[in-house]
């Protein structure tokens, strides 16, 4: 109900919000306007040549540094930046031809370098604006007879007031290059025809929403997509529920007063948790393989070897996947629940005992709400983790192709299909489009779960 009301409210206030836009914009740009109107000659100098205003104010070190940055940027832009930026839009014009020995444009690299160039330009603009603001700040200080901040002081603040700038510089650059850039690249790829037989040296082009059309309309992709998507949802819900409740149950069991030697009992699940996942998965694959021990005993008993994970083993393979995933994931949920239970307020339980609540009632009325409240964010991330659980079926079944599926098997999740399509079969743009769809699905689900969750609704109750 609350959600609906929220939506209603949102639409009710929408016209007001639109009306407020010009005002908000004006407020946002008030600072810029102030600088443009009131900035003196030195500020204008800094607008034209970075650092010039600072130099005119006799702030030598800062001025030279800024000047150097501008020179460096211009050199970069002239040498590669401009072509990179241009290449981002064209994605290459000259096709390579081995016969004539022409080394053509590599569209994909051009795309990446284009994104990189845009990132660098954004960074440069940020520095440029900071440079103008700095000149204006100096003007403000001089106009109001205050001492402008000296370079030495400014460097000093990098370990104090502005320590976050120093500390965050490296992480931000790292995340930009290795997390944001790849994701932007992936999103952009979804709008090109990169893949199939169009891979460098062939030229890639922007195609708009064509890939999404291919996935959702009839064709080779759509049936596979919907089949996998259905299974993927089922898998994510089932496996998250199994892992969560089994882990919680195990933690409660180990938390019981009558259990002696808790550390030893806890050691077994932790053992399972500590073993690297790929070893476990490969181990289980061997266990259920044709020549594996399970089939050995079946044969000993006079049965015939069963292909648990074979080509036509749809449900048995899915079932084994759930079990193995539970084996791997339950211990971590157990550890988490143990930690949270140890923080729980014991008074509540004592009060409940005095009130005559049974163990089951205590669990339903106290433990579950509390743990659910505390773990909602984790639950969401576990759900997303399971939704995108690549390892399980990649290791258990490898890259099988089953009839009725296009380049996928009946146990494959979207992420496995994605892998088959893009890494093994070069359907890059389709793969990117699918991952965008996955992203939209997971974020909508997790947002909905979060909004409906106890930790969102009753933030105050357990504080």
């Amino acid at each position, binding site marked *: 109900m609350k959600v609906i009301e929220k939506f209603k409210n949102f639409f009710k206030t929408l016209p007001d919000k639109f009306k407020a836009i010009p005002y908000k914009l004006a407020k946002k740009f008030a600072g810029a306007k102030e600088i443009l109107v009131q900035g003196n000659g030195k500020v204008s100098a800094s607008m034209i040549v970075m650092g010039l205003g600072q130099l005119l104010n006799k702030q030598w070190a800062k001025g030279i540094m800024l000047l150097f940055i501008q020179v460096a940027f211009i050199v970069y832009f002239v040498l590669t930046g401009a072509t990179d930026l241009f290449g981002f839009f064209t994605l290459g014009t000259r096709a390579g031809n081995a016969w004539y020995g022409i080394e053509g444009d590599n569209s994909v690299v051009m795309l990446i370098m284009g994104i990189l160039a845009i990132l660098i330009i954004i960074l440069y603009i940020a520095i440029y604006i900071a440079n103008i603001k700095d000149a204006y700040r100096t003007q403000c200080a001089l106009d109001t007879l205050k001492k402008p901040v000296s370079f030495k002081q400014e460097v000093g603040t990098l370990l104090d007031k502005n320590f976050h700038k120093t500390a965050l510089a490296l992480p931000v650059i790292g995340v930009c290059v290795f997390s944001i850039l790849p994701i932007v690249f992936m999103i952009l790829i979804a709008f090109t025809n990169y893949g199939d037989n169009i891979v460098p040296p062939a030229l890639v082009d922007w195609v708009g929403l064509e890939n999404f059309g291919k996935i959702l309309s009839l064709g080779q992709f759509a049936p596979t997509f919907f089949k996998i998507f259905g299974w993927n949802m089922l898998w994510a819900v089932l496996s998250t529920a199994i892992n969560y409740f089994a882990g919680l149950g195990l933690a409660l069991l180990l938390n019981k007063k009558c259990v002696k030697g808790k550390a030893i009992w806890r050691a077994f699940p932790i053992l399972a948790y500590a073993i690297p996942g790929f070893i476990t998965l490969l181990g289980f694959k061997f*266990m259920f393989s044709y020549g594996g021990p399970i089939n050995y005993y079946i044969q000993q008993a006079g049965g015939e070897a069963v292909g648990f994970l074979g080509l036509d083993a749809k449900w048995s393979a899915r079932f084994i996947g759930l079990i193995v995933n539970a084996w791997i994931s339950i211990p971590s949920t157990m550890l988490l629940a143990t930690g949270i239970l140890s923080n729980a307020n014991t008074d509540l339980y004592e009060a409940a005992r005095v009130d005559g609540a049974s163990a089951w009632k205590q669990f339903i009325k106290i433990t579950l709400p509390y743990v659910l409240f505390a773990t909602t964010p984790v639950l969401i991330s576990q759900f997303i983790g399971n939704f995108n659980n690549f390892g399980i079926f990649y290791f258990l079944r490898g890259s099988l192709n089953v009839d009725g599926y296009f380049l996928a098997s009946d146990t494959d999740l979207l992420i496995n299909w994605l892998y088959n399509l893009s890494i093994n079969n070069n359907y890059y743009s389709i793969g990117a489009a699918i991952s965008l769809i996955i992203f939209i699905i997971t974020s909508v689900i997790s947002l909905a779960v979060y909004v409906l969750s106890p930790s969102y609704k009753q933030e105050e109750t357990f504080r």
Partner: protein
Amino acid sequence: MNQAKVKVAKAKTKKVLNVLITYCILIVVAFIFFFPCLWLILASFSKSGSIYSFDGFFPVEYGFDSFKTLFTDTVMYNYPQWFLNTLFIASMSCILGTILTILTAYCMSRFRFKSRKAMMKTTLVLGMFPSFMGTIAVYLIMTQFNLINQHWGLILIYSAQAPMGYMVQKGFFDTIPYSIDEAARIDGASNFTVFVKFTLPMAKPMLVYTALTAFTWPWSDFILPKMLLVDRDLYTVAVGLMSLGETEFARFAAGSIFIAIPIIVLYFCLVKYMINGMAAGAVKE
């Protein structure tokens, strides 16, 4: 009187039954978790390597052969080298990744700057993208920087991506009272001093937890090394073991045990930190 006695007796039997059932379940659970490990250990001691020469779960003959071949027969499968590679990559990524993650979390918890909210939201959204479509881009970037087939390339990626998971650490820092920072600032400490002399020592459990997770990820990851490492001698254990077939099962088991032991030891030593760390990150968003 009598009724009360009956009630007490009933409660007693109920209690005994309860304990009995609890222990039964525990034994079953322990068996489920322990048996596959035991199976792998037994398999590593099998004389013949192939999985087809087993009596069910148990090898026909026992011996140390597979361990011997693991470390001596390095022509096809250079396990000692893989192990060292993995150790190097995981340790370096662990150190760098921990530093970057802790710094990020500290800043996000303690500083209020203009782009803070935007950065937090961005990381939250980015976390929901299926990461490995991005690996194509990472691969292309690495080729541009000439870091393909090099361990430092992997280390760079692992440590650069580590700060994305700063939320758990931030949750922990949020629980350290601000007044300690303020007291230190009045005493004359700069923010840097506060971080080094106060926040870090107080966040020891969180440091251990962060280091542990930053170590285990590269230790058991296979997607990135498989993509970026070409030479067999540069492989990590995960990639190397994956290239073993069913006939090499005993060798696989032996190799697995060796790669699993360090992590298991670490986990058992630091289980307390793990539990606290996970809870700290969970309770506070």
